[in-house]
């Protein structure tokens, strides 16, 4: 079991679970399409790797890496 924050650039993964996050960020990520069994690809990472650009459901979304630590993938 590992998190999306650990995925490498261009790696295609499948979301297995989204853990609870502060301020309901987990709900927002689910509403934006990050649901279990959904395919997701890391497209780019910022200079200090604190933000990731991911490709999900046919569009691109930038998310802070600290949030992606709670997105579990396989």
């Amino acid at each position, binding site marked *: 079991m590992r998190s999306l924050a650990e995925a490498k650039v261009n790696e295609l993964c499948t979301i297995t679970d989204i853990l609870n996050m502060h301020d309901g960020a987990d709900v927002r990520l689910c509403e934006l399409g990050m649901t279990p069994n959904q395919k997701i690809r890391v497209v780019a990472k910022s200079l200090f790797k604190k933000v990731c650009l991911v490709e999900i459901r046919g569009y691109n979304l930038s*998310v*802070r890496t600290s949030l992606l630590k709670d997105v579990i993938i396989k």
Partner: protein
Amino acid sequence: MKKLLLVGNANCGKTTLFNTLTNSFEHVGNWHGVTIAEKKKEFVFDGNDFLLFDIPGIYSLNAFSFEEQVAIDAILKNKEEKILNLCDKNNLQRNLYLTLCLLENGFDTTILINNIDKKNIYKIDTKKLSKMLNVDVFEIDAKEKENLKNFLKNTKNCFRNAILPYKNNDFLQKSIKEQAKIRYDYIDFLIKNCTTKTNEIYGKSKIDKFVLNRFFAIPIFFAIMILIFYLTFFSFGKLLSNGLSNLLSLVSSSVVSWLKGGVPPWLASFFETAIFGGINIVISFLPQVVIMFLALSILEDSGYMSRVAFVFDDLLCKVGLSGKSVYSLLMGFGCSTTAIMTARTMDEKSAKIKTALACPYMSCSAKIPIYAVVGGAVFGANNLWVIFGLYLLGVVVSVCVSSILNKTILKGKKQNFILEFPPYRKMSAKRVLLVLWKNTKDFLLKIGSVMLATNVIVWFVSSFSLGCSYVGENGASMLQSLGKIVAPIFVPLGFGSWAIACSLLAGFVAKEVVVSSIAMFNKINSNSQKLISKSILMPSSVVFFASKASVLSFLVFCLLYTPCLSSVIMLSKEVGKKWAFFAVLTQFFVAYVLSFFVYNLAFATEVFGAKKVFVFALFAGVVLLSIYIIYRHIKNRKCGGRCDDCKRGCGKI
């Protein structure tokens, strides 16, 4: 009158549709959160009156930011009215999520599928989708009025209950995350049955390989900014500005010479100094101001702003801001008042206050005339680097102030940076003309109202004595008396004359007034920038700068001091009167301290030479760094005692 609410995801073309239907010119852009407040306007179609509401973009009926709350409140306030749910055709999966949320809650919804980019990532069978959901579905192009007739004719259709097979008691008892999964499963089912999809990714571009590259992204951003400054202040902008200046000079000199023969001296003086000497000089900077706004609009419309937010979030999260603050800060290069308003897109209150307080430190376009006239007088061709340095200083100071606030009185929760990437878009010729027209109009209106009124007041108090008698050019005017009281405050900064103090006081109303006041005080009755630049170096002038050090200090002070009146009003509206007052005081303090530092550093360089000052600065830097390291070491050391008895609460052992 029938009410219609435009509801949809951010950046799906709601304001474009609003503008097309109501013939308005509301601000649009290729960026999340351009619309931050509710707008409404009436329009007539086929003899029927409609009231159309444009609200900020949302992704569901749960609010995660201030502007999303505005949108949801507007929907709930008008829950009996017709909702026009706009969906971006090329990002249909995510857009239909909101549609399902609206239909589940029983809103009277019509789905409008907007082909904003004229791409065909999805080919949609709208009739089938309409049948499956039991709601009206229309494919539109929000920019074309002709193809909007279809859905407008159908807005009187009776309300039908939507078909949502997954909505049962079991669904309603599930958590929000589980409900989201069920909705997306149903969307996948709809997409599979009603559309054909290509493999293209919405918002993906080959350019991003370079623009988002970990090592090239920041240099590319700085290169773009230098290019904008070069076009604004030198090549193109300067050429146009000089042309306009010559033209206005010709007109004003003929009018003044004609006036001098037939009107009283005080009236001639009024036209000569307040109107032609003050206002004209600022009008001649119109091309440069408009070019700066156009450049910012091009960045905004292209979709590059989201990329900049992604690149800079790394650095901004350390000072309690997020990548989303970049948009507000960059807007600050245009106008601080607008920039403060965009801070509403922040998810959290302390981040909103920090962003709003950081915006006025950015160098707004109203300061362009000050840099060009005062900086141009002594730095000549090197003024580009001085101007770039000032813009950079504004950014650095705003980040430092946010950092200090974040560590002291505005300790906020950690920001959740989640931002969608829009596709790159070209700016249409119509949009270029609109931006040029709108900014020209706004600039001239500001000059015709606020600046004219301020100039008349400044002219009156500088031409009449306390006994209200006309004192002419060399008498003791009301302003001179006031200026002499205030001026000593600025002596340590290198520009302690009463006239400079008064021009800075007048600049509180609008920053453009600083240059027009200088022109007025120096009795420049032409609007030639060169003439004003020359006059501030002549010891016989009222406004006179003795050295490069005092000019540099003055520019730094103008960059950072108290925001203009409209910005203070906006701050008070957005973050409260207490924070607006705080901004006025802190900005004056920050400007004063930095100007003092810059003046003394520049003065020392002039007297002792650059090498000696550099060595001294290096030595001082090393000493300060050593003190800081020792302080950190003492603060963080493990005390070796027992935590049970200790009151320090460090938790180190």
